[in-house]
């Protein structure tokens, strides 16, 4: 590669423009990703930990789930206490991965996305907020937030 070519690649990689979407368009059906992102099934308990953990998902910064052992839950986003009655696993998966594909301009960050971002901190360059397995864990936790409680 020519020196100029290498420079061009360096410049592009600095802004994330070359990153391919993590979610392929042909895996999206309507407003859902029906197939899990990983072969290992999501873990509900791990999902609850991620939902609360300040250093990982920290979903409670903006959302609430009644009965969680966590004080001061946020209210910027909707209450998710009964979200399993409203949304399927596939719908939750797409909303967590990249809500902006469901609703362009939506406030909610895209947790499984690396493309088309701007001024990303060096420490986070080229990385999604959550791993595919972490998305699956949170989907597993949220899909069980239903009035009936247990799995159907």
């Amino acid at each position, binding site marked *: 590669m*020519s020196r*100029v070519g290498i420079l061009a690649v360096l410049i592009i990689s600095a802004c994330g423009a070359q990153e391919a979407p993590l979610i392929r368009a042909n895996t999206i059906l309507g407003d859902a990703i029906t197939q899990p992102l990983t072969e290992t099934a999501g873990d509900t308990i791990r999902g609850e930990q991620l939902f609360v953990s300040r250093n990982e998902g920290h979903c409670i910064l903006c959302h609430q789930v009644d009965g969680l052992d966590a*004080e001061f839950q*946020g209210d910027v986003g909707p209450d998710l206490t009964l979200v399993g009655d409203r949304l399927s696993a596939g719908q939750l998966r797409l909303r967590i991965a990249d809500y*902006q594909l469901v609703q362009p301009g939506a406030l909610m960050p895209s947790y499984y996305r690396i493309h088309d971002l*701007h*001024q*990303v901190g060096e420490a*986070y360059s080229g990385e999604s907020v959550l791993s595919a397995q972490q998305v699956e864990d949170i989907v597993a936790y949220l899909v069980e937030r239903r009035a009936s409680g247990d799995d159907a």
Partner: protein
Amino acid sequence: MKRFAGATLIALIPACSAPPAAENATEIAAEDIVSGSIFLTAETRDLQEDNFANPGYLWVDRGEALFSKAPASGEACITCHEAGLSGVAATYPAYDEKAGRVLNLEGRINQCRVTHQSEPAWEYESEELLSVTAFVANQSLGAPVSVDVSGPAQDIYEAGRDYFQTRRGQFNLSCQQCHTENWGKRLRGDTLSQGHGNGFPAYRLEWESLGSLHRRLRDCDLGVRAEPLPYGDPLYVAVELFLAARSNGLEMESPAVRR
């Protein structure tokens, strides 16, 4: 081939420029503009309003001493500014003819040091610059923010507005989305403020120190996992101008106390 590669490079650079800021962005209605002190607990607000208890006054007092002290090479600030600088800070950032650009209060103080006192500029966020800035800002306590964004300041104001409205960082959030569109809602135990700068330099409990508005802006950029700009960056000065214009009429509160 080389020329072709060069052309390709130039064509690719725009891919790295900032995405467009939100079009038709909403603004807070003038009658709804409120200071960040509204969102404090009663205890913290009392702390701010008590000149003896408010830790920010440690810096104001240091600033007063520095203001009166002649540097080795020249005269003290007070020699020229004997009558004080009441109300001046409320008009900053402002376009400065001599500098040919918009300066914030820190930049204006450093300009005086360099041109009138033949002293090196103080480093941004140094105790000296924070202290003198707080001392000067405090002389506008209670005065309405009244910055001018007409004429040569217009472009800088617009650059600041664009920064405020542009999504950035791994979390892909703009300042606007939290501080204009969702102020008053809760992020866990914190209430989202409207993001005004009328209290800065401010004593922030999280810092256990006084800090500049640029330090606060850096914290927000870091919060959305964006690469923060350097202290004193002209783009942060532009954001500061936009924020001040957005809050024109609010009372100056420096040194405010913030969470």
